[in-house]
């Protein structure tokens, strides 16, 4: 009963903290983008607009209001939604409303929702692979510590970490799709349409993301395990005749779970906000590509919405990680 109370209190504190963090992110993002120099109305309207037309656009976009009024308006949209007049009709943008795109007259929320499955597929699939490669390599490295094969393995992971995603991705595409023609050049197919094609087409983007991320996980796993292996309780199990395999696989790996959860949450959260390079390289119509496009055409509501969304995912992933961490290591809640 008491433990439940402790855990509920912990979850509540964590959620409150997350909300405050998100508010802070939104304020900063809003100020940075809307207080930046440049005439938004002029850019939105286009180079051939007359000053009168520009003024009309500015009014329509409420650009004349003070910044804090516009921010509160934005917050109001997130909480209760908005009605937008498009001249002839009124369009309702339901909560959480992140505003309307200047360029396409689409709701930012809908724009993002349309791209989310692509980015989500990319991120989750890559995560499975990098955990598999990374943790596997790390365990092997910790087990064979100090030997030649471990040093070679460590060298490879370091090289992987240092290689940019566009190099790995391009190489994979050139070799596998171009030279060997084992796979077609990636083209996004929704999971709901054809799961098999979805997987085949995403395989290369997954691999190139995972190969780079895996290096980080391998090194983290290795160092966390080596740290645990130096601890007293490992000495206890050695002194009781427990074999090296059980010591590495059960006791040392268990100590790496916490740090792995924390790192994975961060990576997954930021990937959900768009893997800009990977999406651009493989031509995947995800959030990252949309963000690049929005920045190019100065579509501020879309940019702000997406950055806030990225923040949301990172904060959410971290909150989930904290809860998982507490489940994995029960001492956390108590302290």
């Amino acid at each position, binding site marked *: 009963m008491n433990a439940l109370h402790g855990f509920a209190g912990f979850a509540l504190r964590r959620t409150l903290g997350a909300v405050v963090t998100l508010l802070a992110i939104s304020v900063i993002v809003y100020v940075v983008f809307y207080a930046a120099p440049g005439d938004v109305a002029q850019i939105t309207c286009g180079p051939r607009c007359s000053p009168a037309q520009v003024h009309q656009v500015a009014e329509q976009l409420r650009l004349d209001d003070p910044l804090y009024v516009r921010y509160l308006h934005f917050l109001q949209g997130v909480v209760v939604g908005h009605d937008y007049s498009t001249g002839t009709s009124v369009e309702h943008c339901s909560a959480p409303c992140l505003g309307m795109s200047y360029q396409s007259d689409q709701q930012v929320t809908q724009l993002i929702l349309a791209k989310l499955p692509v980015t989500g597929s990319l991120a989750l699939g890559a995560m499975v692979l990098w955990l598999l490669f990374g943790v596997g390599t790390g365990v092997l490295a910790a087990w064979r510590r100090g030997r030649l094969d471990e040093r070679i393995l460590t060298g490879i992971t370091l090289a992987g970490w240092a290689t940019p995603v566009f190099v790995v991705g391009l190489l994979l595409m050139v070799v596998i799709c171009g030279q060997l023609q084992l796979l077609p050049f990636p083209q996004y197919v929704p999971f709901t349409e054809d799961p098999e094609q979805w997987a085949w087409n995403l395989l290369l983007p997954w691999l190139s993301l995972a190969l780079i991320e895996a290096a980080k996980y391998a090194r983290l796993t290795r160092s966390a395990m080596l740290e645990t292996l130096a601890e*007293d309780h490992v000495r*206890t*199990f*050695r002194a009781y005749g*427990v074999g090296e395999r*059980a010591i590495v696989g059960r006791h040392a790996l*268990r100590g790496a779970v916490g740090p792995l959860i924390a790192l994975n949450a961060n990576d997954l959260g930021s990937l959900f906000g768009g893997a800009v390079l990977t999406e651009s390289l493989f031509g995947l119509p995800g959030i990252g590509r949309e963000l690049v496009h929005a920045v190019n055409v100065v579509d501020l509501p879309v940019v702000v919405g997406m950055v806030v969304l990225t923040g949301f995912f990172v904060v959410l992933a971290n909150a989930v990680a904290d809860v998982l961490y507490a489940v994995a290591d*029960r001492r956390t809640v108590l302290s």
Partner: protein
Amino acid sequence: MSTAESLVQVTGLSVAFGPVRAVDALSFRLERGAALALVGESGSGKSTVASALLGLHRGTGAVVDGTVRVAGVDVGSASDAELRRLRGGTAAMVFQDPLSSLDPYYAVGDQIAEVYRVHHRASRRAARARAVQVLDRVGIPDAVRRSRSRPHEFSGGMRQRALIAMALACEPELLVADEPTTALDVTVQAQILDLLHTLRQETGMGLLLVTHDVGVAAGSVDDILVMRNGVEVEHGPVATVLGSPARTYTRRLLKSVPRVDVPRPAHPADAEHEPASAGVALEAVGLRRVFGRGARAFAAVDDVSLQVRRGEALGIVGESGSGKTTLGRMLVGLLAPSAGQVRREGVAVNGVRPDVQMVFQDPVSSLNPRRSVGESVADPLRARGERDPAVRTRVAELLERVGLEPAHHGRYPHEFSGGQRQRIGIARALAADPRVLVCDEPVSALDVTTQAQVVELLDELRRELGLALVFIAHDLAVVRRVSDRLAVMRRGRVVEYGQANEVYESPREAYTRHLLAAVPALDPDLAAVRRAERMEQRSLG
């Protein structure tokens, strides 16, 4: 293999870590069912010997010479598989720190079951049942339920019981216990030692006890082997070695051991000085300190009032969690009381003041490793604005006062031994010209011979500088060695407060009597009597 072979037979054992010879040509035997203690100060090589019995040096880079035979197995030449069978199966080890010696992530019962399954073909369920059985055997209440707890949910004493349960799981012939009670309170220590004694009687297993505490050894073993710098100093039956030691070092070691039954040596200066009439240097009035809020609030110190007069030493004893450290921190002003007052010469004071200084427990972490010790000692002087030639002269005086060389000014903490570091800590406390010195466990991290020297230094400073001394410690014998008066704390309150000699010789409170009864006796016969008394009390209560 003859039937007459000893359980443990160590011949010419040497262990070297690089250029350091931790153990040098050591030989001894331990017969089946017998008990031997390896006694020595830190660095004497006693733990290294214990590890060698289980072949734990294999693969660590240590160079092991000589032969170690345990239950007929030559540990040095045994195959890895043979060695694994020996470890835990034939010879089991119990370690010093019971918290770090168990995996924090798994249930205690599962860890014992894992070890059991290494040595026996058993189903998970059967191994788990065995774990519950041994946990119950070592006196863990409600063993079925508690076997599912993680180590951090156990108290220190229960964790040590759990480790002993792990050792028992495979019914070993030899138990190697490396400082099994050093991290425990004195009453818990007595319980664990009594448990080991009972188990040994029931199972007939041999015991190799490694300890720095001669008192712990006295009541637990048949033979004692005193070690120093990796070599044997003296070896013989416990009554002989402790009763009529043959070697100078053993005599010195025994002389350094603080005795709870011996009052502070009288000093002519104390006779002239009448503490009873001296002014009150520091006073606590109704001190209370609450930690946490709401339902989880708890008073670490609750309504404590006491006084320290000029030139007097007040000892504060209590087990862990009794609130003695919290009280000490409030006396110095490092912690604000939730209620009550600290009065200095009759005037209520707040915050840290130069005339009340603190000496901390851990001489390693309480000095900045990146600053020379001279600069650390100079800190309080510079803080009050003194300039260089004067500061250097004063630091030199202070270093000399605590028994170090003025030339040590430019050296760094790692170049000093534990006792020397504690002297540096005392010099730093003295730099501010305090009238009161609050020492929180100032010698508990030190070896007995060093301990005796530091205690002697503090006593000398009290007499010569007329300092009021507050001496906080869990070790009742050490406290007796310094104190004029004594306060016994339990659960945040002072349960007994009076003249030290009166409290030690005729304690009024049952709790004080209980604490005193748990202090290990140096005389093996007395230890046996005390044990019998404790066991009787336990069976009654």
